[in-house]
């Protein structure tokens, strides 16, 4: 089943080409739409909602043609904009009830669905207070709730983690994951932070300059490698726990490397090749023998950022007349690295 399908979809404004013959198929699940600012993400959402006609090409959402069935699509789809969109002087309940009615729900159903949805996104007693006093995290939840209140089959979430602190970001990503796993609603989520999508999405679509750069499942992007990352504590006996572990492992015939990248804390991580189950046992035993605490032991995965690096190497020359994608990709890679830096420990799954 295809949730979103586009066929050489183009959108040209007098001076800019926002989408350039974009063809893709997106199935159910959580799909990440990645692209720098101006890559055409918002234009794509606008066309998919049937609000802006495509210059050429076709697009279908839930099997409905966007050019002719905009109203039907918008009845079955939810949209969470990137920007602030909440009036401060009404409560979350009043606001979401109103939005539910705007989606065609009868008054009683609108109230019932509002209570349910606000509870699901994690707003409880505060939902009766005016939105003006909410934190950014709570406002994002209200925005998500209004997109879900009419029980859509698909939601478009435009940069849902914008402006959130790392904890809020994690909670929002968990919530987005649940929208699919628990609620059975497909999600198209845009972000410019690749690390986020890697952890949340089943499938990632990368667009740049209105063109499809890549579309594949997250597991393709970040195949699980056999590299293990191990981090241990120091003890009185071994003031440099990491060094002691490395030495002990070498004594057992296991080659180790430092975690490169120069990120803070990287020096405290030992990387080694896992040859099978026994490697895990070996590490555990070595750490226990040394009397150190095992902080974490995880499979290191490739990051989506690396996809860009390798893509650029393959692509070589950027297409003429286009901003060099490699520069953008490099910028994204840097952003992603920064995101990983704050969220390294979360990679353990």
């Amino acid at each position: 089943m295809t949730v979103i399908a586009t066929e050489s979809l183009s959108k040209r404004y007098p001076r800019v080409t926002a989408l350039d013959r974009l063809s893709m198929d997106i199935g159910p699940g959580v799909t990440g739409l990645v692209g720098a600012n101006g890559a055409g993400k918002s234009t794509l959402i606008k066309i998919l909602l049937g609000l802006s006609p495509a210059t050429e090409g076709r697009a279908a959402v839930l099997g409905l043609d966007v050019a002719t069935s905009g109203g039907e699509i918008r009845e079955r789809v939810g949209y969470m904009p990137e920007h602030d969109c909440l009036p401060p002087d009404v409560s979350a309940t009043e606001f979401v009830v109103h939005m539910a009615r705007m989606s065609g729900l009868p008054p009683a159903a609108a109230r019932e669905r509002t209570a349910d949805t606000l509870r699901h996104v994690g707003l409880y007693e505060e939902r009766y207070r005016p939105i003006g006093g909410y934190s950014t995290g709570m406002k994002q939840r209200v925005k998500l709730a209004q997109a879900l209140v009419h029980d859509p089959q698909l939601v478009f979430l435009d940069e849902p983690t914008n402006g959130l602190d790392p904890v809020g970001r994690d909670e929002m990503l968990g919530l987005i994951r649940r929208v699919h796993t628990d609620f059975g609603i497909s999600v198209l989520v845009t972000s410019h932070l690749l690390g986020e999508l890697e952890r949340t999405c089943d499938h990632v679509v990368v667009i740049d300059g209105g063109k499809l750069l890549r579309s594949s499942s997250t597991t393709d992007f970040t195949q699980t490698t056999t590299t293990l990352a191990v981090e241990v504590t120091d003890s009185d006996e071994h003031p440099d726990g990491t060094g002691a572990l490395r030495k002990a492992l070498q004594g057992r015939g296991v080659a180790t490397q430092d975690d490169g990248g120069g990120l803070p804390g990287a020096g405290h991580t030992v990387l080694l090749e896992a040859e099978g189950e026994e490697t895990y046992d070996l590490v555990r035993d070595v750490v226990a023998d040394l009397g150190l605490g095992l902080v974490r032991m995880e499979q290191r995965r490739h990051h989506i950022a690396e996809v860009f690096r390798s893509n650029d190497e393959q692509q070589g020359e950027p297409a003429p007349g286009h901003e060099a994608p490699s520069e953008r990709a490099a910028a994204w890679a840097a952003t992603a690295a920064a995101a990983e830096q704050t969220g390294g420990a979360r990679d353990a799954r």
Partner: protein
Amino acid sequence: MPADSTQIHNIGYRHYEGPRLGRAYATRSLFSQSLRGAYGLGRSAKSKVLPMILFGVMCAPALIMVAVAVATKANDLPIDYTRYAIVLQAVISLYLAAQAPQTVSRDLRFQTVPLYFSRPIERVDYVRAKFAALSSALFILTAVPLVVLYVGALLAKLDFADQTKGFAQGLVSVALLSVLFSGIALVISAVTPRRGFGIAAVIAVLTISYGAVSTVQAIAHEQGSSEAISWLGLFSPITLIDGIQTAFLGATSAFPGKEGPSAGAGAVYVLVVLALIAGSYAALLRRYRKAGL
């Protein structure tokens, strides 16, 4: 009671299987929400204060007049039905200045508009709902005092046919006034989303235009050019309404020297009013073309 019956169960996510009433229903909901909002209903207590006070101020003179008419057993009401809104135009302007920005600017200022347009309703539905809501709110504000006058007149046993005719003419006049004034105020509010600015702009357009027109009319009256007086009335909303009701609804003109337009000039008045209403509707539609996602 067994302990497990007091447990709170997480019933999980439930899908909605009920009806989805679609575009027309959503438009009606938006209309009723906006109409209620124009009187502060369904909003904070603070936002009810001003519209309710103005509503009271609008009705109070009618109640007093009725009381006087009943008590003194007068032969006629102290004021014509058609004249009432003209006399109390300041209250109408204040009400519009407060409520028109409330009706449209909030959605623009807080960028709520994209949430509407990502739902089944379309741009035209949104504009129609808002236009109809403010017009209805204004009609309630201007027609209820007329109802008070009419009921009072019947209680005072004034001539039924005469009063009914006057009342009907008054209703037509305030209906036209409501649509015209709402259109103008909505357009002004929609292009000035900033709070306060819209309020000032609405008051300015309604009162300054009236001030300017009546000043120039007074000068024309001094110089005895009665023809000019009736044509000058085309340049402010309230004098437009005055002109139309003088020409067609049996009203006595409030223009200097009571020099209202003749039926021929009155037709021009009607055309101008219709053009203004259509123009404000078109301008609103245009405004929201850019306010989408």
